[in-house]
């Protein structure tokens, strides 16, 4: 199975165009030099990751930023499918939700999320938390070693 040569790719799953633009702008501003793939709903995210019947080469991003409330297939379902497939089980997933409901947080971690961020609307630096998270997961965090890399 071939994978996109994307050692530092970020998969951003977000349906709201405004949020998406703000996040992309913040990442660009922060100088994160990683390709950002965008999925506008859960179904599209699954297809990108090769978890749906899709012909494209599956994406293996360094980190997935996942919104919960999505059209068609919601974030939890994406997370569950991601973790269920051994090919994608170890990809770090950061849930980014506007909800700070304890039930939502608990459920996300139970399904295997690595982190949970509540969307912030800080004055002066909109979307900066996304850029900071990207910086952390791309530059500071050691990703799980890949089978292919070890051989």
């Amino acid at each position, binding site marked *: 199975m071939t994978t996109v040569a994307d050692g530092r790719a970020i998969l951003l799953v977000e*349906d*709201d*165009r*405004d*949020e998406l633009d*703000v996040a992309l*702008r913040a990442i660009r501003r922060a100088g994160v030099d990683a390709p950002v793939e965008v999925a*506008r*709903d859960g179904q599209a995210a699954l297809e990108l990751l090769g978890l749906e019947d899709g012909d494209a080469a599956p994406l293996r991003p360094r980190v997935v930023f996942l919104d*919960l*409330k*999505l*059209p*068609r*297939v919601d974030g939890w379902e994406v997370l569950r499918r991601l973790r269920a497939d051994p090919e994608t089980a170890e990809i770090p997933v950061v849930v980014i*939700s*506007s*909800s*700070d*409901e304890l039930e*939502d947080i608990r459920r996300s971690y139970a399904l295997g999320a690595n982190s949970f961020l509540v*969307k912030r*609307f*800080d*004055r*002066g*630096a*909109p*979307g900066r938390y996304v850029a900071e998270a990207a910086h952390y997961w791309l530059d500071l965090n050691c990703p799980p070693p890949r089978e292919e890399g070890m051989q």
Partner: protein
Amino acid sequence: MYNRAVQNAVTGRRRAWPDVWLPILIVVLGWAASAGTWWLLVTERRQTILESTQTIAGESSHQVVREVEAYLLALRDLAELWELVGRRPLAHWQADVDGVIDSFPALDFVAWTDSPDGAPRIRSASGQAMRSLPEPGPPQPGVDGPVRDRAGGPAFLRVVLPVGPRGERGLLVSRIDLDSLLHQVLDDVARSYAVRAFWGDEQIFSRGEASADAWQAWWRVEQTAALPHGIVWRLRHRPTPPLAATLLTPVPHYLLASGLVLSLLLAALVHQLRVTVRQSRFLAATNRALEERGGELERRVAERTRDLEEALNELRAFTQAISHDLRSPLGAVLNFTSILEEDYPHRPLDMEGLEMLARIRRSASRATALLSGLLRHSRAGRVTLSISPIEMRSLATEIFAQVVAAEGDDDVEFLAEELPPVEGDRSLLGDVFANLLTNALKYSRGREKRRITVRGSVQGDECIYEVADNGRGFDPRFERKLFGMFERLDPDDDVEGTGAGLAIVDRIVRRHGGRVWAEGRPDEGARFCFALPRKQEAGS
């Protein structure tokens, strides 16, 4: 309901009278049967007693006749003997007489006379000295009686026989003591009976004491005894008290008494049974009532639980909507105002800045739309239904006109087929059509030959309605999600909407006791259906 059922079982005004008459009937019938049986037994017993008494009386009469004949024969033999042997010493005659008297002790005396004045030549009485004849004057031949020496004295049968064909050798005169004779016979034959004998109107014999009970007079048996020489006696037999006591067994009386008592017992038993049956009926009715009540309570609990679950779901959906959906547009407003502040501190807005302003405005109006959707959804769940019969076709047509006017989009063919009328809340069902028709308009926009069709049919107890379009359709895998609050299948922004419409449709239809579903395929149009019960239950 409970009270009425129990009351019916307990009092049962219609049953009050039979409760009394059945035991009474049993007592009456039981007593009648006992009395009848008693009467039969008593009659039977009387018959038996009468028959045995008659047998005894017949036997007595027979014996009496035989005995009297034997006496007369003995006397006649004596007379014939005297006629044959002729004259001889008186002592011989005396010996003959003594011999006869020895054998026939009831003979009072035997005498012989041949004198014209009737003075006897010999006279002999049983073991006694000779006596003179009791009657004065010459005796006449014959057998007659009863004769008495004094009024109330013992009665005798007098026998005067000629000695010789014409009495040429005198007359044999004798008397038979009837009391003695009858004692001799009856003591043997009718020992246990009180017997009285009558000759004509005169009582000639009496022995034993008859039972004194007046009501036992019926068992007196009178038998005639026809004697020689035209003499007729009447023998009257009655059982003596000891015999009566033996014959009159108390069995019928015992039977009668037990019959009466048993009837009473049976009546009491029947009454008790009926009481028991009534009590068990009462218990059964109570049980039924309690079960009904239990069922009703269970139903009510289930209903409440359903209501609570619905309320809880609404609350959860509300929380979700606030946390997830409402925050997004508000966040966008905050974000873009921040960006504007950051990027345009000292210079006028360029095209990009104006675009951001437009986005801010769009987000704010989206937040307003979401809030209003949320409120409409909530109201659809709370408002009291006002049920009336609805002409669904005219409603659909009317609503379509409103929707087209509101959307400013009339480039569409609208077909409203015949729709079955139904009972429901006209205003809410109008909202249903409004949401479905608006969706159909929105999701077919930009297509060739747009067509929206409304159809309906009756299937069983349900009226089924359908709004079909030939728009972009949807992936059937996500059919259920369509009806969730603020759920949208398309992230594209080219179709406006909050995703509240179908949730509201679902809610309104379920409040009418119906259900909703959708059918469709991508690019092949969509059909949104809802089914309503034909009749609304009162009070729902």
